[in-house]
């Protein structure tokens, strides 16, 4: 009844390990790419744009070149709602910091030595890539991932504090991958990774925050949202003249959630905090529902 999230350095076989773990545990496998058709359907954004937002490295100001930041919120929303089902192995970095406070999520990071990763990329590439080019490709992909995660979440994807398990599979051989798999399976079966009322509620809070952010993304994709057992705290910014209008617009968009969402989530009580951009005086608006 637990959840495993797996990330990896490039060409370290994290995806293969995630799929094998799902198969062995009879869990469902999901990654940030195979969920894109569902995201596209629900939010009306083309899959090509969603793919771009996962591939493009955000520029210095945190903006994506082609796709929009809210597309990340849409993907996070469906991933976290997927995780509510439990018995899931999720591979990918989207939503990486969101599950930090959920005790039944086993967070795994896979790394391997450079030599093996170079061999791996040389095996995978159809055109005969030289060792030098393969080495550069591995380094480039690592840097891209690092920049992407830093720009979107302001964290270092390689920071071991983010994970419960960091597994160095050393050489990417069958035995090493199998050992990593065994470690993950034996760990997740440990009592401390079993869900409980508290952790299930934490997961629901995470998913509900994402859902509210997605609903309000067109108004302000940078707003902060925190859900606490149905009380939703929204922190946003606005110029003085537009603050009240923004709050009103937010109220109207959050209520009503559709029937599917009402089934999943708590009854809402919303607190919206608007920081006025000019004089930074805070307006507090309370809405009940």
């Amino acid at each position, binding site marked *: 009844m637990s959840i495993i999230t797996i990330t990896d350095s490039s060409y370290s076989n994290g995806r293969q390990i995630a799929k094998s773990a799902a198969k062995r545990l009879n869990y469902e496998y999901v990654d940030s790419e195979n969920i894109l058709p569902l995201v596209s359907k629900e939010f009306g954004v083309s899959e090509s744009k969603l793919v771009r937002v996962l591939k493009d490295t955000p520029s210095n100001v945190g903006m994506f070149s082609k796709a929009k930041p809210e597309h990340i919120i849409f993907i996070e929303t469906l991933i976290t709602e997927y995780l509510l089902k439990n018995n899931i192995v999720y591979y990918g970095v989207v939503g990486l910091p969101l599950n*930090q*406070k959920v*005790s039944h999520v086993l967070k795994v990071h896979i790394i391997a030595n450079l030599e093996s990763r170079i061999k791996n990329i040389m095996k995978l590439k159809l055109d005969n890539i030289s060792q030098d080019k393969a080495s550069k490709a591995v380094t480039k992909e690592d840097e891209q991932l690092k920049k992407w995660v830093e720009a979107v979440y302001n964290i270092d994807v390689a920071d071991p504090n983010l994970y419960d398990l960091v597994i160095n599979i050393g050489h990417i051989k069958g035995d090493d991958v199998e050992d990593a798999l065994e470690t993950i399976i034996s760990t997740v079966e440990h*009592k*401390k990774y079993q869900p*409980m*009322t*508290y*952790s299930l*509620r934490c997961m629901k809070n995470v998913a509900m925050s994402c859902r509210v952010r997605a609903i309000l993304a067109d108004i302000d994709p940078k707003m902060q949202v925190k859900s606490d057992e149905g009380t939703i705290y929204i922190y946003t910014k606005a110029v003085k003249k537009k603050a009240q209008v923004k709050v009103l617009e937010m109220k109207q968009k959050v209520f009503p959630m559709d029937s599917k969402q009402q089934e999943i989530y708590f009854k809402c009580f919303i607190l919206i905090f608007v920081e006025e951009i000019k004089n930074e005086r805070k307006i507090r608006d309370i809405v009940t529902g």
Partner: protein
Amino acid sequence: MKEKLEILLLDDETIVGNRLGPALEKVGYGVEVFEDPVKALNRIHEKEFDIVVTDIMMAEVNGIQVLEEVRKKSDTTKVIIITGYATVALAREAMDKGAFDMIAKPFKPSELHSVITKAADSLGYKKL
């Protein structure tokens, strides 16, 4: 098999016992309420309860110590942790040491009842 599920409820906040004790008795459980963890531990050593519901942050003895004591005495007693200071580390420690479940305060009596029902099911009691 006993007719009535026996529960020990331990919380150093009077209001918790005052509120939850009668609510649980009303649905048919036998409930003993304690505010002092030392007295509760003495009672746990005297009598085998089906379920122990305990707070975590208490003076002298904390809820994890209560959990450990219960585990030493009985493999079957289910321990439910209720706390206003829930964290990932605490949740994992509690589960690791054999807690049945953990609920973050504040919660509704119906939520505790639902967890107790699950614990009772796992002990083979019919639903109340």
